[in-house]
C-alpha cells in the first residue's frame, strides 16, 4: 500500500517537475523577432504598388473615378457609392498600416543594423529611400483625403490621432523630401535587391525624388504660399527622370500571389465587372489614337472600339474589353514615369514657371513617351502629333485642357493619376452618371467609415475643417 502511494506521489511530482516553467512559455517560436530592414522596405513597396495598381472594387475604384473603366452590372462604385464596400477604409489602412508603418520600421532598423555592409553612407542612403517612399505615400493620402493624420500618425500610443491641415502637411513633406535628396550619395549602395523597383540604384532614386518633388509642386501650382515655382525649379535642377529608362517600374511576376492585380481581378477571378468607358473610347476614336489597340481588346472586331456608358448598367458582351497586355499577369506597374514628368514640365512651362523647355516640347515628349511605352512606334507618335486635334498649337482649348486631355489618355492604367489630373485641370469633359451632374463627380475621397466610430472627435473636426466629409468637397489646392 505504502509502495503504491509513494509511487503515485513520485509519479505526480515527476510529471509536475517535467512541466516547463511558466516563464519559459508564451513564446511564439514560429515568428521572427528580428528581421533585416530591407525586407520591410520591399514589403512596403509592394503594398504601395499593389494598391496603386489594383482594380479591386473593395480597394481601388479610381479607374472608375477617372472614367477609364465603368462597371457592367454592379454599378455602385461607378455611381460613387464608396460606403457599401468601405473602400476609403481599405485605402487608408493600406497606406498607413501596410506601407507607412513598415517604412517607419525599416528606417528604425536601418539605424540599428551593424553588419559590415552597412557603412554610414549606405545607411544614410537606406534611410533616405524610406523617407522618399514615405513622402510619396503621405502625398497620395493628402491628395486623396485632404487633412490627414500626420504628426500623430504611426504612433500606437496615440489611438486617436488628430488630423493635420493638408497644406501644412504638404510643406512638411517638401522639407522631408529635400532632406532625403540631400542625404543621397549616388556613389554608394542602398537596399540592393530588396529595392524591387530600382535594384538599389541611388542615382535613379535621386531622379525619382526630384520628380516626386516636381509632381507635388505641380499639384499645388495654385498655392503660392508653398512656393511651387521655386520647388519646380529646384526639382528640375536636381535632375528629374530623363528617359523611360528612369521609370519607376515594378515588374510583376508570372505566378500567384505576385501577379499584376489587374490580372487577378479581371482574369483569375473569372468575373466580367469592367469595360472601358465611352468617355475614353469616344475620345480616342475621335483622335484616332494609336494606343487603342494597346489599351483595348478587339473583341468587337479589328479596329472597332465601343465604350460602356459611364455609370450605367452595361452588357459586357457588347462593349470593348481591355487588352490582353493590360490583363497580363506580368504586366509591370508604374509608380512614376518619364511621360508623366514631361506633362508636369509642360504644365510648368505653360504656367510660366522657369523650366528649360517649352510647353509644346514637353507635351510632345510626354505623348511620344506614352505611345512608345505602350508598344507604339516613333512613326505612330509622329503621325499622332500631326493630328490638328492633338498638336499643341492647334488642339482646342486652354493649356490646361490640352495637357489634361493628353495626360489623361496617357495615364490610362493609373486611375488615381488620371482622376487627379481631371481634378486639377478640370479636363477632359467627364460624363456624369445618369441622374447626376458634373457637380456630383468626386473631388476627393471620403474619410474611412471606421474613423467615425474609432476616432470620432478628430474625424469630426477634420471633416468640418475641410468643408465637410463629402466626395464633392474640393481640396485646398483645387482652386478652379
Amino acid at each position, binding site marked *: *500500500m505504502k509502495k503504491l502511494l509513494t509511487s*503515485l506521489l513520485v509519479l505526480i511530482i515527476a510529471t509536475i517537475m517535467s*512541466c*516547463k516553467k*511558466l*516563464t519559459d*512559455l*508564451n*513564446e*511564439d517560436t*514560429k*515568428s*521572427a*523577432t528580428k528581421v*533585416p530592414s530591407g*525586407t*520591410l522596405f*520591399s*514589403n512596403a513597396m*509592394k503594398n504601395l504598388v499593389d494598391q496603386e495598381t489594383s482594380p479591386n472594387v473593395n480597394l481601388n475604384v479610381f479607374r472608375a473615378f477617372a472614367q477609364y473603366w465603368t462597371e457592367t452590372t454592379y454599378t455602385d462604385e461607378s455611381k460613387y457609392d464608396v*460606403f*457599401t*464596400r*468601405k473602400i476609403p477604409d481599405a485605402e*487608408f*489602412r493600406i497606406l498607413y*498600416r*501596410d506601407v507607412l*508603418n513598415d517604412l517607419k*520600421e525599416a528606417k528604425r532598423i536601418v539605424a540599428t543594423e551593424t553588419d559590415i555592409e552597412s557603412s554610414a553612407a549606405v545607411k544614410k542612403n537606406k534611410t533616405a529611400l524610406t523617407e522618399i517612399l514615405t513622402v510619396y505615400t503621405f502625398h497620395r493620402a493628402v491628395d486623396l483625403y485632404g487633412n*490627414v493624420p500626420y504628426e500623430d*500618425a*504611426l*504612433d500606437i500610443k*496615440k*489611438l*486617436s*490621432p488628430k488630423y493635420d491641415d493638408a497644406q501644412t502637411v504638404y510643406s512638411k513633406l517638401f522639407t522631408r523630401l529635400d532632406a532625403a535628396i540631400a542625404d543621397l550619395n549616388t556613389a554608394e549602395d542602398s537596399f540592393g*535587391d530588396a529595392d*524591387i523597383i530600382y535594384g538599389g540604384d541611388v542615382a535613379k532614386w535621386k531622379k525619382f525624388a526630384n520628380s516626386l518633388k516636381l509632381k507635388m509642386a505641380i499639384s499645388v501650382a495654385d498655392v503660392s504660399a508653398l512656393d511651387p515655382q521655386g520647388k519646380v525649379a529646384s526639382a528640375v535642377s536636381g535632375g528629374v527622370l530623363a528617359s523611360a529608362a528612369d521609370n519607376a517600374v515594378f515588374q510583376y511576376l508570372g505566378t*500567384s*500571389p505576385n501577379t499584376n492585380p489587374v490580372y*487577378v481581378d479581371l482574369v*483569375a*477571378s473569372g*468575373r*466580367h465587372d469592367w469595360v472601358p468607358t465611352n468617355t475614353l473610347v469616344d475620345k480616342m476614336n475621335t483622335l484616332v489614337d494609336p494606343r487603342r489597340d494597346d489599351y483595348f481588346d478587339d473583341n468587337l472586331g479589328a479596329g472597332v472600339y465601343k465604350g460602356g456608358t459611364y455609370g450605367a*448598367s*452595361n*452588357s459586357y*458582351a*457588347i462593349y470593348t474589353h481591355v487588352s490582353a497586355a493590360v490583363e497580363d499577369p506580368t504586366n509591370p506597374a508604374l509608380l512614376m514615369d518619364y511621360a508623366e514628368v514631361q506633362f508636369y514640365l509642360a504644365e510648368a512651362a505653360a504656367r510660366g514657371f522657369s523650366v528649360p523647355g517649352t510647353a509644346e516640347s514637353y507635351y510632345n515628349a510626354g505623348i511620344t513617351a506614352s505611345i512608345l511605352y505602350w508598344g507604339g512606334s516613333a512613326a505612330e507618335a509622329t503621325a499622332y502629333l500631326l493630328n490638328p486635334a492633338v498638336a499643341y498649337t492647334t488642339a482646342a482649348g486652354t493649356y490646361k485642357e490640352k495637357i489634361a486631355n493628353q495626360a489623361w489618355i496617357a495615364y490610362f492604367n493609373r486611375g488615381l493619376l488620371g482622376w487627379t489630373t481631371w481634378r486639377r485641370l478640370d479636363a477632359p469633359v467627364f460624363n456624369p452618371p445618369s441622374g447626376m451632374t458634373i457637380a456630383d463627380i468626386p473631388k476627393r475621397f471620403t474619410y474611412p*467609415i*471606421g*474613423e*467615425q*466610430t*474609432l476616432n*470620432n472627435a478628430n474625424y469630426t473636426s477634420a471633416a468640418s475643417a475641410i468643408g465637410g466629409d*463629402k466626395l464633392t468637397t474640393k481640396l485646398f489646392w483645387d482652386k478652379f
Partner: protein
Amino acid sequence: MFAQSRVIKGVVKDSETGEGIPGVGILVVGSTTATTSDINGGYSITVEGEGKKLIFSYVGYANQTVDADKEVIDVTLMPSSTVLNETVVTALGVSREKKSLGYATQQIGGDQVTAVKSGNFVNQISGKVAGARVRNNSNMGGSTNIIIRGATSIVSNNQALFVVDGVPMNNDATNGANQKSSRGGFDYGSPISDINPEDIESINVLKGAAATALYGSRAARGVIIVTTKKGRLAAADTRRRFGVTLNSNLTLGTIDKSTFPTYQQEYGGGYGKFYGPNGDEWFDKGDVTGDGTADDLIVPTYEDASYGGKFDPSLMVYQWDAFVPKSKNYHKKTPWVGAGENGPATFFNKAMSTTNGFSIDGGTNKGAFRVSYSNGNESGIMPNSSLKKNSFGFNGGLELNDKLSTSVSANYVNTRAIGRNETGYNDNLMSSHRQWIQTNANYADLKEIYELTDANYGWNPQSWTDPVVPIFWNNPYFQRYKNFQNDQRNRFFGNLTMNYKVNDIISLMARIGVDTYSTLQEERLAVGSLAQGFGIPSIAGNLGPASPSGYSRLNKNFGETNFDLMANFKKDLNENFNISGLIGSNIRRSSDASVWSSTNGGLVVPELYSISNSVNAPLPSVENAALYGVNGYFAAVSFGYQRFLFLDVTARQDYSSTLPVDKNAFFYPGVSGSFVFSEKLKNLTWLDFGKVRLNYANVGNDAPFASIADVYDKPSAFGSTPLFSLPNAKNNEDLKPEISSTTEAGLEMVFFKKRLGFDFAVYNTNTTNQIFNVTVSTATGYSSKFVNAGKIQNKGMELSVFGTPLKTKDFSWTVTLNYASNRNKVIELFKDESGVEVKNLQIASFQQGVTLNATVGEALGSLKGTDYVYKDGKKVVGANGYYVKTTTTDNTLGNINPDFTAGITNTLTYKNWSYSFLIDMQQGGSVWSVDMAYGLATGIYPESVGNNDLGNPVRNDVSAGGGVIFEGVLADGTPNTKRVAADYGAWGYVRNPNAKFVYDASYVKLREMSLSYHIPVKKEHFFTGASVGLVGSNLWIIHKNLPYADPEAGASAGNTQGAQIGVMPLIRTYGFNLTLQF
C-alpha cells in the same frame, strides 16, 4: 457481545409514484456488504452486528440512510429533482448539499439532454437553465454559442467553461477568422460535442463568480459541470451483477419553410432592360439556330438577380440548358417561366440521423465500472453531407482498501464529416439562395444536367458561348459533390484519480486529467469551378489568392493536461457547528499547434487532391505553435451553524504564463452565505423550504497566448525577395490580468408540499481591466492593439419556477419556467497613453459599413451604420424620390442583446406515459440581415413585385404607370409625391440605409416535444427497463419578426453575433427513441 447475523428485508419505493424501484444500491454502512433491489424494489440484506445503518442510493434520487434496527424496513426515496436535500457537484468536483450553497446553480438531468438529440448536447440546454443563452445554427455539426449571464468580455471568449468529471474540456471552435466574421468558410463545430450525451448523468450550471472562483482564470464566464454516469458498487451475490442499456434513436429533419426565402414568380433573370445588341432589351440576341440572323432570344445567364423579363409561358427563349450539348433542351427554346416548385427549396434533402449505443455497467463490492459505445450517423440537408461519430467511454473505480481508492476514466471519440455546408458571404450557396439568384433557375434541371455531364454547367455561365464557365455561382450540385470539404477529429480525454482517506476528517485527492485531440481539415476546389480566393493568403488576414482550383489542409493538435492535488477536511465541531474545506493546487499546461498548407495557382491533375499537385510552387505553410499554462493554488472553507446558517470563503491565486512575469499573479477571493429561514419557521406548514443567499466574488482572466511581445508577420516572398511586415495587431508588454467581480443575491422557496417553488437571483457583475485586442484607427499603423481597460457592467435577474398544478395517483402535470434578463452596459472604456479617452470600440465590422460596437453608455453589442434621416418623426425622401441616408455611419441601429429570454417546459404524465414540451422564447435584440439587404435589392422576394397604388405592376416604367412613391416627407416637411422606378436596388441596400435591414430578433419557438412510454417491467421479462419515445425539436416557430430566416441563425459561436449572411434555414426534426435495460 457476539456479532449477530440477521437478514433485513423490505421494499424500496418511489415517494411520488409509490412504485418499487429496481436496482437501488443498498449498503451496510461501514462494511462491504451490499446488494441491489430487485425488479419490484424488494431487497434482502444480511447485517452483521448491532447499531448498523443502511444506505440506499439510486441515480436520480436522494440517498437515504436508515438504522438497521428492524427486520422489515420499507424505504421511500425522493426523486432528487424535487428534494431539498439534493446534493450537487460544485467547483473542483466537491459535492455539496444544495441548501447550503450561497450562490446560484441549476442542475439538469442527463435525460433532459438525451430525450431529444441534436449531435451536441449543449443545444438541449436551451430554455432549461435560467440565464444560459444557447444559440445554435443549422450548420451540419455546427458550433453552439453558450453564454451565461450575458457577455462580460468585449472581445475575449465569452463561452462557458466545460468541466467533465472535474477536468476542464476544451471547447474552442477551430473555425477561422473569416468564418467567424461571415466572410466565408466552414463551421467546424464545437469540440464539446465530443461528449456522448448518453454518458451524461447530470449537468450543473454554476452561474456566478462565487460559484466558479475556485476554477480560476477561465471561469469568469460561468462553468458547466458535466458528471458522467458511473458503474455502481454491488454485492457479489446479487442477481444483477451487470446492467446493460441499449439505446437507439432515429431522427429525420426537414427545413422549416418559414426560415427560407419565398421567391417571386413574376420576373426572371436580369438586372433590367440592358441586353440585346443595343443594350435596351430584356434578353440578349444571338444566332443559336445558325440561320445567319442574330434574332434568337437568350436569357442573360451571367446575371444573378431577378429584375429581368416578365415571365410569360408563351414566350420561348433560350435558357442556360439550351447550350449544354447533352441537355434535352439543347438548342431548344423553352417557355419563360419561374422555377415554381423546382426552386432552391428542392435542393435540400431530408436530414437523417441515427444514434445507436450501448453501455454496460457493473461491479463488485470493491469496484465498479461502466463502458459505453455510441455510434452516430448523420446526413445533413445539403446534398453530399454526412457526419459520423464513434465514441468509446470507460470509467471504473476500485477501492483498494478502507482508505485508498482510485478511479479512472478514458474516452475516445472519432468524428468524421464530409461536405459541411459553406457559411458566410463568399461562395456559399445559401448566399446565392438568399441574395443572388434568378427565380427561373430550375433545380430539377440543374441536378439532371450535373448528373448527366459531371461538369459545371449551371444557371450562371459567363455567356451562352461559354456555358460551362460560371461567372458568380457554380451549379449547386457540382459545388456540393465536387467542392466538398472533409474533416476528422480524434480525441482522447480522461483522468486518473487517487483518493486517500487519512481519517474521518481529512482526505487527499490527486488527479491527472488529459484532453487531447488531433484534427485534419481538408478543403477542395475542383477543376472547372468558379475561381475564388482559396488556401493560404499571401498576407496574413486576407483571403487566399484567386485560384481556379485547389486543395488545402490544416493539421492541428491540441492538448491540455491538468494536475490537481487537493486535501479535503470535514468536521463537526459540536452539535451546532460544522466546518469543512479544502486546500490544493492546480497545474495546467496547454499546447496548440497547427500547420496549414495549400496548393497555389490551381491543380495540375483534376480530382487529385494533394499539395504536390499544385500548379505553382505552394506558398510556405502557415505554422502555429502555442504553449501556455497556469499554476493555481486555492483554499476554501465552509462553516455551517445548526443547519440553517452557512458561510463559505474561497481564495485562489493564479500565475499565468501569458502575462508579463511581474504581473502574472492574480488573486480571486470569494465569500458567500446562506440563511435557510424555513428552519426557523417550522410552524408555517405551507412553507417547505426557504433560503436567502448572498455572495461576492472576483474572478480573473489572463491574456491570449503571445500577446505581450511583438513579432513580425511573414508575407509570401516576392519571387526571390523575402518580405516581412509589422503585424496588424500591436501586442502589449504591460498587460495585467482582467478581473470581474460579482455581487449576487438569491431567494429560494418551496411551498405546499413541494407543489410550487422558485429560485430567484439578482446579480451585478463588473468586469474591469479587460484584456482586449481593440480595433484602432489604422492611422496608428496597426489595426488593433492589446490593451487592458474598460468597465462593463452586467446586471440581471433569473427566475426559475417549478410547479405541479395537478397531481393524482396516475396523472401529474408539472411546469418549469426559466426566465432571465440581463442588461449590460459599457461604463467606460479606456484612455490611450496620450491620455485621450476612447469612447467606442469596434467588436466586428460587416459588409456595407455596419459595425458591432462597445460604446460608452450603451449596451455591449450595438449595431451601427447608416440610418434614415427623419423630420418630425417621418422619414425624409430626397428630391430623387428615394430615402435620404445619413452620411454618417455611427448611428446606433439596434443592439444584439435580448431584453429577456424564457423557456417553459410542461410535462404531463399518465401512468407510464409521459408527454413534455418546451416553449422557448427571446424578446428583443436586433439582427442585421445582409441577406435581406442584398436579396431585396436583387428582386428575388415577393416584396419587389405586385401592383402599386395605381393598380399597375410596380415594376413597370414610371411612364407606363409603374413605380412607387416612398412614404415620407421631403426636406421641407411636405409629403413625398415623387414616383420612382422600382428597379434594381429600390427595395434593397442600394437605395436604403442600413437601418432598414436591422430586424427585431424576437422569437417564440416550440423547441422540443416528446412523448414517451415506459414499458411496465414484469419479472418474467428479460429486460429490466424499457422505454420508447417520439421526439421532435424546432417544430414550430410560433412567432418571429425576421422574414425568411431564423432569428437565431448565425455564422458560428463567438463574439461576432448579430449578423445574418447566407444563413441556413432552421431544421425541424422528429424522431424515435428506444431504450432497453437488461
